[in-house]
């Protein structure tokens, strides 16, 4: 897309932040069943990356995927309706937090299986390009995912076939409760090098920095370059999943959490705006989310009789389970 646009970047970061905070409230209120994996603290990555993409470019997210879906341009109201399991949701209430998808804006879906999306995205980008679309793709994943063989196979396939995929590793230091040092032998960048892929590390708390490295990589890819990897160093401000709000798991020292939270992408992006402009954005975001919550909660719950709708794209109907 275009160059630096601090206002737009801030807006996206702020939108994701407040979306997540409201989603957590809705979890607490019992409106979002099953909980969520909050993206709090990592907003700068999705915002920065997607600011460097076009609408036609393709993206896959993760279990911690709200930020990716929103930053790529999905409607927050329909996204929230999805989390609330309403027919007005992006996936008609069938997907929920971990499967939210919006093919209309190039989001092939969040994905609940760690490491699974990379090869899917690679295939999708390849096919679109075979059809003549000059697109690139981005697949987000965590530091835990770099230990999944299926993702490493995707690195190889994308590099071998020179499919322009940006592999964005959101290194928040933990896979659930496992620190990255306890799980990753070698380095994350080294995993890219293994397949001849360039890799660069970036401060994931600074959306502008993320946008810049992404834009540079995307430009190289659009000019015919192969896949690349970006390791965005970040910190997860909240729980791995909202279930941790009930059950305290002891794995991050409080000082570390405090230090991690001290570099807040909202503040970093916000400081680049005139305070008055920032306040305006905040108000606009709030208004949008007020409306989104209202929209979400007003949406009808799906009819149980439609439980198997969309199971088969071919129109096949499944035998039901009754006696």
């Amino acid at each position: 897309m275009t160059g630096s646009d601090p206002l737009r970047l801030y807006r996206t970061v702020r939108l994701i932040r407040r979306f997540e905070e409201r989603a957590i409230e809705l979890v607490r209120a019992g409106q979002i069943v099953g909980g969520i994996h909050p993206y709090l603290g990592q907003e700068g990555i999705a915002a920065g990356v997607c600011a460097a993409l076009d609408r036609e470019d393709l993206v896959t997210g993760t279990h911690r995927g709200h930020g990716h879906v929103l930053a790529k341009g999905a409607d927050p109201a329909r996204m929230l309706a999805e989390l609330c399991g309403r027919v007005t949701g992006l996936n008609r209430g069938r997907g929920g937090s971990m499967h939210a998808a919006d093919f209309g804006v190039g989001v092939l879906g969040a994905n609940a299986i760690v490491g699974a999306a990379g090869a899917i995205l690679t295939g999708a980008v390849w096919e679109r390009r075979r059809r003549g679309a000059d697109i690139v793709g981005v697949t987000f994943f965590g530091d835990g995912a770099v230990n999944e063989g299926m993702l490493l196979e995707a690195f190889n396939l994308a590099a071998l076939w020179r499919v322009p995929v940006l592999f964005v590793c959101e290194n928040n230091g933990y896979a659930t409760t496992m620190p990255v040092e306890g799980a990753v032998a070698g380095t994350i960048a080294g995993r890219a090098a293994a397949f001849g892929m360039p890799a660069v590390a970036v401060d994931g708390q600074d959306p502008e920095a993320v946008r810049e490295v992404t834009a540079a990589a995307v430009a190289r890819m659009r000019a015919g370059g192969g896949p690349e990897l970006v390791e965005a160093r970040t910190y997860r401000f909240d729980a791995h999943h909202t279930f941790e709000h009930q059950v305290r798991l002891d794995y991050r020292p409080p000082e570390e959490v405090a230090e991690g939270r001290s570099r807040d992408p909202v503040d970093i992006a916000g400081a680049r705006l005139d305070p008055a402009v920032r306040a305006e954005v905040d108000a606009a975001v709030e208004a949008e989310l007020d409306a989104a919550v209202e929209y979400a909660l007003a949406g009808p719950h799906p009819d149980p009789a439609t439980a198997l709708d969309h199971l088969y794209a071919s129109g096949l109907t499944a035998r039901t389970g009754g006696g």
Partner: protein
Amino acid sequence: MPRLSYRRALTRALADEMARDESVVVLGEDIRVAAANVTTGLLKKFGPERVRDTPLSEQAFTSFATGAALAGARPVVEFQIPSLLFLVFEQIVNHAHKFPLMTGGQCAVPVTYVVPGSGSRTGWAGQHSDHPYALFAHVGVTTVVPATPADAYGLLVSAIRCDDPVVVFAPAGALDLRADVTDLTPVPLGRGIVRRPGADVTVVAVGHLVHDALAVAEELAGQASVEVFDPRTLYPFDWDGLFESVSRTGRLVVVDDGNRSCGIAGEIIATVVERVRLAAPPRRVTRPDGAVLPFAPALDRAVQPGRDQLTAAIQLTLKDG
């Protein structure tokens, strides 16, 4: 004895077996801090050498367990999600299961795979809500689905002691059960149990559905005498125990939270009709064919077998014949 929760029964089984036998080790993701609330306290008691928190490398750590077993260990592998069994299907089915025969009996692979929270967890949607026990019954890996805290303890103990691979499904729908357990004791693999005697119809129920079947049987008590049979182990199945029951009642209904086609309910019906003359056509209540659980709670529930469906199936079976 105090009331024991299903989860703590699993914890106790692990702790007891680890204490009894040095060869037992536990592997899995976040087991250090017991994120799944099953391995609680084990790290402290047995140390990091025997409680190995793994990277997100399911295929590698599953095969690692196979190798450790070949060298004398009795590993227990915890999986956070039932569908992770798809990801390691190759490692279990094509390796762990096949090694003894392929080597002509040179080795054993005593690994236990535990899934705490199989089936729907309500709100975890399509990729976290599978109940794929029939897959393992098909390939012939010992498969247990304990319904009660006592069985969770006793079957997990027996699984760990078994010289073959065993998959233990701990249904999400049973994990929060509590019961007075007077006697923590191994439960033999391959032996079912009549949970409620009855004369008119045998209801075979799997896992957490045993409790639904008991509730339905109670509700119907005025109309019919319903026997509830809990197979506990789906493979190898306690055919003799079931034949005994069905021979008495002459009628069969199966309720099972797996997909319908090629599921355990179908297997039960097929094997029974091959051997026992029934007074009425058998029936089953299952998930639909090819089920994927939709996210919205009402849809999620709609895809699982329900008490109403079971009640209807029993009533129809009683009318038939």
